[in-house]
């Protein structure tokens, strides 16, 4: 293990030094959402899951009939919309990040194993990946949710199971070129086991790509979660999830209670847009190999 410190080329630091075009606003938005999600209890003015039925469909404070007590109005059960949006940020953050990590762990592991071992293992994993890619993602997620039933935990697992394929494809491609490099050959000569090589020499070198992919997947995962919740197979009520709020908002939409439809959607859009902008920037700056994506 003497050669280890030299053998692993450090991930390129160039992107961190040159921060031209750094997406400051998206990062601030994501940080803001994360802040709100963490301190939801302190920030929310009301209980997000309990409403007063006498206070149903109150409009936002600046509209006629609104009050400062409910800044962004109330929904069909008299629950405070602002508080639900705040706690909804937590649901989106937790589900989004854990699902991306679950998908990343599955996809990166399979990608490394497939690329490094090659042969029939590679064949099997890649065939399964192709089949998975053929499954329409949203329909597949709905199907899985219909089998296991809705819960936050299940949604994370389902999204992980649906979205690992992209990691597997990209990581495998990188491993194919990495395993021809000197430091890997030296590790083989030094008598490292296949497991050690994959864990200590290959994995650190593909982490960059995995992180870039993860950021790009975050938006996709959050939209899918919102769609599943909207359809009633995602986060179960009365939990405040943005997609669920949109589904509830339909109850007041036809009479013009716009805040129930517009506000949760704006939150989803801000988060997804920020994640996409950050992911795009990371892709170009940290990982030139992924520019083609």
């Amino acid at each position, binding site marked *: 293990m003497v050669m280890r410190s030299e053998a692993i080329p450090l991930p390129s630091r160039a992107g961190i030094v040159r921060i031209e075009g750094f997406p400051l606003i998206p990062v601030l938005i994501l940080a803001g959402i994360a802040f709100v999600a963490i301190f939801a209890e302190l920030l929310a003015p009301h209980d997000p899951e309990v409403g007063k039925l006498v206070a149903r469909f109150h409009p936002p404070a600046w509209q006629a009939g609104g009050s400062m007590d409910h800044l962004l109005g109330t929904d069909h059960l008299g629950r405070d919309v602002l508080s639900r949006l705040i706690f909804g940020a937590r649901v989106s953050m937790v589900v989004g990040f854990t699902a991306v990590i679950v998908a990343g762990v599955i996809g990166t592991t399979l990608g490394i194993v497939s690329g490094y071992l090659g042969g029939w293992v590679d064949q099997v994993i890649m*065939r*399964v990946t*192709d*089949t*998975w890619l*053929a*499954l*329409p*993602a*949203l*329909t*597949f997620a*709905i*199907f*899985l949710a*219909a*089998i*296991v039933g809705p819960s936050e935990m299940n949604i994370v697992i389902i999204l992980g199971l649906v979205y690992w394929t992209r990691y597997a494809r990209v990581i495998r491609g990188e491993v194919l070129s990495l395993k021809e490099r000197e430091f890997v050959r030296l590790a083989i000569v030094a008598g490292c086991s296949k497991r050690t090589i994959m864990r200590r020499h290959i994995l650190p070198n593909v982490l960059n790509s995995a992180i870039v992919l993860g950021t790009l997947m975050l*938006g996709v995962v959050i*939209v899918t979660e*919102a*769609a599943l919740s*909207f*359809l*009633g*197979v995602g986060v179960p009520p009365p939990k405040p999830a943005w997609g669920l709020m*949109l589904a509830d*908002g*339909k109850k007041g*939409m*036809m*009479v*013009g209670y*716009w805040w129930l*439809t*517009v506000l949760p*959607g704006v939150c*989803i*859009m801000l988060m*997804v*847009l920020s994640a*996409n*902008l950050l992911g795009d920037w990371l892709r170009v700056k940290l990982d030139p190999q992924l520019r083609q994506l």
Partner: protein
Amino acid sequence: MARYIAQRLGYSLLSLFLLSLTIFLFVRVTGDPTTLLVEPGASQADIDAIREQFGLDRPIWVQYWSFVASLLQGDFGQSFYYRTPVLELYISRLPNSLLLALAAMAFSLLIGIPSGILAAVRVNRFWDRAGKVFSLLGLSLPSFWVGLVLILFFSVYLEWLPSSGSGTVWHLLMPAFALGWYFAAAHMRLTRSSMLDVLGSEYIKLARLKGLPESLVIAKHAFKNALIPVLTLAGINLVIMVNVAVVVETVFAWPGIGRLLYEGITFRDFPVVQAIVLLGGAMIVVVNLLIDILYAVIDPRIRLEG
């Protein structure tokens, strides 16, 4: 050529086999499949009949075989809610889904191709940047939310368009826009990069050297070749549209396959959900196969490689 097609066909069959195996295993592994395959509140006799039909007490490979055998005969089970074979339901909804997908596709190409060309011709200038913003928005806005906001604006406030249902062109406009929005952005991106590739090639330089006016170079020489990858993607996307339309169809109560899937979820109609996943996956496998073959016919380099 024949060898290439046979190989592609083999891969597709393998994919279909893995597809059915995946779906089958998920249903079996996650618990007692009888609870999914039998209606809630079914009598013991019904439960026994289902157990008999799928042989749920027999070894798992025997079960898988009878599952595939019934699929091959077009038997996707009975819908609990509609009391008709699921395949019939699926086929009866397919025209509506295709209509919506075609309208959304027309919309996405009408927006995506011209704006993509404009962005490529004016690369890094104003229109290119505007296009980038547009495509980022398109890829970040959830289609069902776009649909909801459209209803709010055009149906509730302006009262111009019907908020749900089908039958007239007016019913089609908003769902097609909501569904096509995302794809317009995707088609724009691809048109731009494909156009940029073509504009950098030798034969375009030659056309310019000949003294052809730039508009003619773009319209006559570059455009046609740049369009091939875009139309290929559009072909795949049409199938994907049919399968991702579930949320948009639910928002607009459009009676297509997506709506059927939504009903399948709400009425706990598992055979319907299962059939839609299976058929959706199969459709994508078949379209990929057709595109592979088509490419080989067009481009001899591909079939020689294979």
